[in-house]
C-alpha cells in the first residue's frame, strides 16, 4: 500500500523538478523553429510586434499570434506585420489564435476566478491537448510581454512540462514603459519564465536573473 503512494510521490516530485525554469540554452538548431507570441492589446501588442519584426521569419516558421477575444486591433496588426515581411518561403505561414480574456477591464475581482479558469482551459486546449495529439510542441519559443492574461498561457506550458510533453521555452520581455518597477505581469511571471528581459538597467535589481540588453523596441 505504501509503496505505490511513495512511488507516485517520487514521480510527482520528479515531474515538478522537470518543470523548473532553466537558463540553459537549447541545443544547436538543425531545423527551423516555430514561434508563438501573445499580443496583449494596445501598447503591449505594438511592443510585441516590434520585437517579432526583428526576427528572421525564415528561421521562425510557422508563427502563432495569440490574441484575446474581441481584440481586432491586435489581429489586424499581426496580419499587417506578416504582409510587410512578405516572407520568401512562399505562402505566409502563420495563424492567429483567439483565447478568452482571463479578466476583462473593470471586471469585479470576485468574478475573476471563473473567467480566468475558462481562459486557462482554452490555453490548455491549444497548448497541451494539441501537443499530445500531434506529438510536437505547440511552439519552440513563446514570447510574452504582458498584460496579466499571458499568465494562463504560462500555466498551460507548465502542464505540458509536468506531463512530459514538449513545451516551448518561455521568454518574457518587460515593457519599455516600466523604468523603476516591474509590471503586475512581470511580477507574476518572473519566477516561471526561462528568460526574463528588462529594458531599463534599473530593473535588473528588481528581479534575480533579469537580463538587460539595452532598448529592444
Amino acid at each position, binding site marked *: 500500500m505504501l509503496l505505490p503512494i511513495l512511488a507516485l510521490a517520487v514521480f510527482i516530485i520528479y515531474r515538478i523538478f522537470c518543470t523548473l525554469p532553466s537558463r540553459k*540554452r*537549447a*541545443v*544547436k*538548431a538543425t531545423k527551423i*523553429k516555430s514561434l508563438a507570441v501573445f499580443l496583449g492589446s*494596445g*501598447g503591449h501588442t*505594438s511592443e510585441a510586434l*516590434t*520585437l517579432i*519584426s*526583428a*526576427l*528572421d521569419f525564415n*528561421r*521562425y516558421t510557422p508563427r502563432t499570434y495569440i490574441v484575446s477575444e474581441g481584440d481586432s486591433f491586435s489581429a489586424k496588426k499581426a496580419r499587417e506585420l506578416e504582409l510587410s515581411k512578405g516572407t520568401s518561403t512562399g505562402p505566409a505561414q502563420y495563424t492567429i489564435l483567439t483565447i478568452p480574456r482571463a479578466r476583462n477591464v473593470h471586471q469585479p475581482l470576485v468574478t475573476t476566478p471563473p473567467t480566468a479558469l475558462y481562459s486557462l482551459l482554452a490555453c490548455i486546449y491549444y497548448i497541451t491537448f494539441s501537443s499530445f495529439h500531434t506529438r510536437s510542441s505547440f511552439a*519552440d*519559443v513563446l*514570447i510574452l510581454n504582458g498584460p496579466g492574461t499571458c499568465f494562463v498561457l504560462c500555466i498551460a506550458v507548465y502542464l505540458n512540462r509536468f506531463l512530459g510533453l514538449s513545451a516551448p*521555452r518561455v*521568454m518574457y*520581455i518587460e*515593457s*519599455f*514603459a*516600466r*523604468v*523603476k*518597477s516591474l509590471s503586475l505581469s512581470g511580477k507574476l511571471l518572473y519566477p516561471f519564465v*526561462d*528568460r526574463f*528581459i528588462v529594458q*531599463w538597467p534599473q530593473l535588473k535589481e528588481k528581479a534575480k536573473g533579469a537580463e538587460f*540588453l*539595452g*532598448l*529592444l*523596441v
Partner: protein
Amino acid sequence: MRAFVTVGTFQFDALVAAVLDERVLVALRDRGYTELVVQCGKSAFEHAAAVAGGETVYIERDGMRVELWQSRPSLDAEFRRADLVIGHAGAGTILEVLRLGKPLIVVPNPTLLHNHQTELAAALGPYLKTAAIHDLADTIASFDPASLQKFPPFDGSRFRALVDAEMGFV
C-alpha cells in the same frame, strides 16, 4: 507651423483645458505656430459632445486656428505633419514621436493611478521635454528643440541575437 496635441485613448481633461487656454495659445502663437490640432479622446470640455459624435470642430482663438476631434485609428499622419507634438506620456506615443524625430513635450497625467509615466518621461530626459499642466505655457515659450538629443533608431539586432541564441541558431 502646426502643433499637434494627443491625450491618448481615454481622457485627460486638464491637458485639453490647458491647450485651449489663452496662455498656451499665445505662447504657441509667439513661437510662430498658426495651427493647433487636438486629439481630445474622451476628455470633458466645451465641445466634448460634438467630438464624441465624430465631428471635427474648428474654432479661432487668440489668433490660432484650432481643430478638435476625438480619435483616429492611427496618428502617424498627424505626427508627420506636426512641427511640435504635445502629448500625454504614454510609452507608445513617446516611441512613435521620437522615432519620427519630432520635437516632443510630454505632460504626464497626474490623475492616473500607479503613475509610472512620470518615471518614463524622466528617464527619457535627454530626448524630450517634460512639462506639468501649470507650466506648459512657459515650457512652450522657452522650449528649444535643438537642445534635445536625437533618439536612437530601432535596432532589432539585440532581440534577434537573443532569440537566435536561445533557439540554438548561433
